[in-house]
């Protein structure tokens, strides 16, 4: 009994977890330890759980996740920078029976796409927005983002973000939660197993609400950018807990159309 071999354990009937088939076999283009990969995976796991591969249209942004369509094994459209909610609006209006989501970074959603985001939210488009907030422009090499924290360093604020001259970080999630068209708003993370499980539940909830035509659902995932922050992945996750979470606190912000707290 004590001598169970690895081969005996590694049997299909004993499988606990493996990468979903809704992710392609292509190696992810993200930096080691980047939360994008985890976020991609749980979105795809939820779609798999919902058996909705043939019913889902995803919209990729411009930014690090511009190539999301290389990894997500569903029909996808790649939008111009910031415009994903406009594409999603049309897709959902023209095919209301489909599950439609955008996957956007903070530069895409909270800077160049502010108008498209706010207005899609305000119209209560029946779509889901997955918002990855790592407080920096990763793909272009670590420039200041609309979400960069006060005094946080980036390549275009090398001495730290001076809020007097560079403005304050924009809390888009709290902002869109104010809009009547928005049904569900939550802020989560994917840096620990517990947080991944919570975030996956949140995404499931968002998609379920979309299926029930409840209005716009918005899931922010506060994530790391170890390359941009110039830290190891483990350091970046710790730094995120200590610096990002106090400013961007995790938890539900709006549930069933009601603001929490």
């Amino acid at each position: 009994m004590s001598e169970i071999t690895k081969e005996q354990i590694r049997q299909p009937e004993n499988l606990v977890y493996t990468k979903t088939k809704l992710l392609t076999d292509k190696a992810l283009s993200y930096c080691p330890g980047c939360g994008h990969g985890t976020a991609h995976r749980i979105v795809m796991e939820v779609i798999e759980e919902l058996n909705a591969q043939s019913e889902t249209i995803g919209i990729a942004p411009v930014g690090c996740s511009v190539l999301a369509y290389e990894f997500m094994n569903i029909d996808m459209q790649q939008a111009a920078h910031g415009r994903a909610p406009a594409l999603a609006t049309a897709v959902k209006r023209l095919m209301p029976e489909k599950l439609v989501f955008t996957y956007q970074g903070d530069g895409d959603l909270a800077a160049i796409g502010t108008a498209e985001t706010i207005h899609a939210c305000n119209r209560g488009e029946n779509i889901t927005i997955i918002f990855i907030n790592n407080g920096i422009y990763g793909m272009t090499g670590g420039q200041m983002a609309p979400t960069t924290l006060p005094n946080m360093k980036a390549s275009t604020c090398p001495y730290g973000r001076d809020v007097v001259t560079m403005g304050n970080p924009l809390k888009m999630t709290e902002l869109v939660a104010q809009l009547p068209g928005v049904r569900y708003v939550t802020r989560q993370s994917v840096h620990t197993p517990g947080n991944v499980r919570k975030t996956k539940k949140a995404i499931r909830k968002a998609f379920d609400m979309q299926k029930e035509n409840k209005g716009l659902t918005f899931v922010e995932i506060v994530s790391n950018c170890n390359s941009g922050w110039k830290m190891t992945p483990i350091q970046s996750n710790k730094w995120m807990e200590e610096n990002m979470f106090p400013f961007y606190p995790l938890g539900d912000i709006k549930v069933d159309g009601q603001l929490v707290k």
Partner: protein
Amino acid sequence: MKELRLMKGNEAVAEAAIRAGCDGYFGYPITPQSEVMEYLMYQEPHKTTGMVVLQAESEVAAINMVYGGASCGKRVMTSSSSPGISLKQEGISYIAGAELPCLIVNVVRGGPGLGTIQPAQSDYFQSTKGGGHGDYRLLVLAPASVQEMADFAGLGFELAFKYRNPVLILSDGVIGQMMEKVELQPHQPRFTKEEIKANTPWATYGKTDDRGRNIITSLDLDSHKQEKHVTHLAEKYQAMEENEVRYEEFQTEDAEYLIVAYGSSARISQKAVDIARAKGIKVGLLRPITLFPFPKKPLAKLATQVKGILSVEMSLGQMVEDVKLAVECKIKVEHFGRYGGIIPTPDEVVAALEQKIIGG
């Protein structure tokens, strides 16, 4: 049975779009084209054909809604006027790059900048040479009547899907705002799901087990692939030049001089031809209906017959460059235009012909 109506150009293109089986219109108000969306909203086609009509938060959003809808294999369109069309250029470039069919209507007003709300033809370069970034062309139809505003909606969709390319109806404030008698085409049904699957197998309508995932993108980080893609686009534009050139000739049989004009300038020039002929000047008119592809061959042929060409445009002179290229500068080509929202009179056109071509 013929269905005749008295309509504005802007209303005609809207009504014709509904009848052409359009699935979605996404727009933003701007003078002098606001009647397009107003008409659609008043008609409520979602109750009859199921067509979606949505007022977007900006021209930028509207064209990107078109991108999203076109990606699903749907017949989608937008309309605007010059400053709004400038805002749409980013989206148009993406749409051309991703090879999506769609219809765009530009009811041109004077520019640059906010310019004026009066008619002009100063967006010719923007329309025919690409407009946004990158190597691409739109197929450009230039209506000269309210009837053509209606006819080009259906034709525009047909060509857009034939070539997987955006089609632009380049109208102007005159054609958009004036009322004329229009014969409307019967209703054509919207595409069914089965038709979309069969006719646009590249569209994103949900990945099924019988095919790989469909991806709509204009991005290719592999430059070799990108070059191949642009070469493919070039072949498409070449095919348009071979198959889709449309134009109209008026009194060219015995012409010694030629006016080239499109859209409302062509209507004015047609009257100018009559006035000139009454004065004994043998002048004809060539009206390009497609501005891209441009009627190069018929112009080159007429260049062996006439002594000089006057390009009449409500601009500083934009199409005149294409006329010169078409005739390879073998004969005299001059431009006459009013601009900034001023419409030339037929007498001014005749005077310009006499001064710049005959007397010059």
